[in-house]
């Protein structure tokens, strides 16, 4: 029972390949029709280009961050020596160990934008863009090409390394003699290191650098935490979907309702946490009513992005809190699958409304390009994680907490 080798089901393989194919075709079509747009009107050509880059930027960051959430939850639970996650540990590990692929994609997109001086996306790239409202000197250092490049590359490399390392250590433990805990403690230390890196990157500087700088004159200190909460709750939903999928195919027998309940609690609690941060950011700006701050919400609340603003609250707060509140719902596979999908869609929309108003202004379009790129990224996740899962047994047999996880009661 405890030595299960995952085989990628044929259906998953074909689906992921089809989705990847759609993504690649869309990307090529996007390059032809959007990046080298032949629209006779000049501003429309610019808009097409902006749409091309903004959609790629939004999707690559979104999928990178929700994959990274797996590394974060593994590190956090390892540091707390929590046993509940061990039953399905291999799934967040597999997701975390493919972070490097998304890191490369995101890195290419970000550095291309910066080094081609694409100031239609990152307005701060243009020197003297608005001399009457220029950035102050510290911010000029933060939003500069060298700093952006060095910090982005460093952070992407560290994230990728930690994602791979944590899985490596966990797999190494399988072949070690029973009862040894050396690798377990090594994993503990690596996790501590990751939390440190994470605090300095995703939990503070990276969302400012990558997303908030799209509106280079607007700022909010809550922004990073808000982005982190968004990516973390989506990451937990993705782990939930994978656990249920793998379990449905007859693996992971030691994962019981109790573990599903725990994951459901994370989805529930962090939906509320996200709302708390989103609201804290919103309320201070709304109350102070300073024009340079309220401009951010002007386009989103009253402008053309109204629909996303309300969808954001409904999909990411009202739905999870009302559906997941009763205990039986958190233990019902159908309900948690449904809510996981709602949360993933909702937070994709959240990222969409973070990126789009600054880049394509009121001309947002949810068309073939957005759809195709999302398909491509979903296919990539399915393909990479599915394949990663086959390379190691699904149960970490020598983990000291294995017994604890089997008898775990949530």
């Amino acid at each position: 029972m405890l030595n299960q080798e995952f085989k990628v089901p044929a259906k998953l393989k074909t689906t992921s390949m089809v989705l990847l194919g759609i993504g690649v075709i869309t990307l090529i079509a996007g390059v032809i029709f959007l990046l080298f747009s032949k629209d006779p009107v000049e501003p429309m050509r610019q808009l097409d280009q902006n749409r091309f880059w903004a959609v790629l930027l939004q999707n690559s960051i979104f999928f990178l961050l929700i994959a990274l959430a797996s590394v974060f939850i593994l590190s956090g639970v390892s540091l707390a020596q929590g046993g509940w996650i061990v039953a399905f540990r291999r799934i967040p590990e597999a997701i975390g160990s493919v972070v490097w692929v998304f890191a490369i994609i995101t890195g290419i997109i970000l550095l291309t934008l910066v080094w081609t001086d694409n100031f239609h996306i990152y307005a701060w790239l243009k020197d003297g863009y608005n001399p009457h409202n220029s950035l102050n000197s510290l911010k000029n250092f933060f939003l500069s090409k060298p700093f952006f490049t060095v910090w982005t590359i460093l952070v992407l490399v560290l994230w990728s390394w930690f994602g791979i390392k944590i899985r490596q250590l966990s797999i190494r433990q399988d072949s070690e003699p029973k009862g040894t805990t050396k690798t377990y403690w090594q994993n503990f230390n690596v996790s501590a290191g990751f939390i440190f890196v994470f605090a300095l990157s995703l939990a503070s500087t990276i969302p400012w650098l990558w997303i908030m700088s799209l509106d280079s004159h607007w700022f909010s200190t809550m922004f990073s935490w808000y982005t982190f909460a968004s990516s973390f709750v989506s990451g937990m939903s993705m782990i939930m979907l994978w656990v249920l999928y793998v379990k449905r195919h007859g693996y992971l027998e030691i994962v019981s309702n109790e573990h599903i309940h725990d994951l459901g609690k994370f989805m529930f609690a962090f939906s509320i946490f996200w709302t708390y941060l989103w609201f804290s950011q919103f309320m201070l700006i709304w109350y102070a009513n300073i024009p340079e701050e309220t401009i951010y919400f002007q386009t989103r609340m009253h402008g053309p992005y109204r629909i996303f603003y309300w969808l954001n609250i409904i999909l990411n707060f009202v739905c999870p809190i009302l559906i997941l509140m009763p205990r039986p719902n958190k233990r019902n596979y159908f309900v948690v699958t449904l809510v996981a999908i709602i949360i993933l869609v909702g937070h994709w929309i959240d990222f969409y409304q973070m990126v789009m108003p600054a880049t394509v202004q009121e001309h947002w379009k949810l068309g073939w390009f957005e759809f195709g790129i999302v398909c491509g990224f979903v296919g990539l996740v399915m393909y990479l994680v599915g394949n990663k899962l086959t390379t190691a047994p699904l149960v970490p047999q020598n983990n000291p907490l294995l017994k604890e996880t089997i008898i775990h009661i949530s």
Partner: protein
Amino acid sequence: MSIKKFAVAAYDDEAVLFPAVKKVRSAGYKIHDVFTPFAVHGLDEALGEKESDLHIAGFIYGITGTSTALGFMGWIFTTDWPQNFGGKPHFPLPAFIPITFELTVLFAAVGMVLTFCYLNQIMPGVKKHIFHPRQTDDKFVMVIEVNDTNAAETEAFLKSTGADETNIQIAESDWWYGRFDKKEDYEIQQQLA
């Protein structure tokens, strides 16, 4: 409030208690209650207890708090004493959210604590019969309600499940107000009279 007859068994260890609970239940006895010195995981499932409805009460208290806060503040600032705060509307919902949240939590928390105490019959001044003096110390005590005909047989069965001590007690099954046991209470009343 009624005086009933109980068969009481005290066990030494939870590892003995669990099989005993299973045996007693499969033999068809109805367990009145089990007292343990600490919370024993899985005991409620073993006893076949249904999930508590306390959280439904909590939800109702919570939305009561929400509507109290919104209704009261809304009434004050739109009807009773409208004021202009920084040009905000008279019903500034975002500004009300923190207070609404606090009141929701307060109502839910206080309401649930009181309901919990009521359901478990723990209140200042409330007394219950204690079946075994060591039930909060180191003994695991199982109590089964019996009648005159099956008392001896039940006690023997409990003994066979590994109980340390068993006895038959006639006791008040519910709670009452007062500082003393029912018997002492009665004696004090007699002396005072």
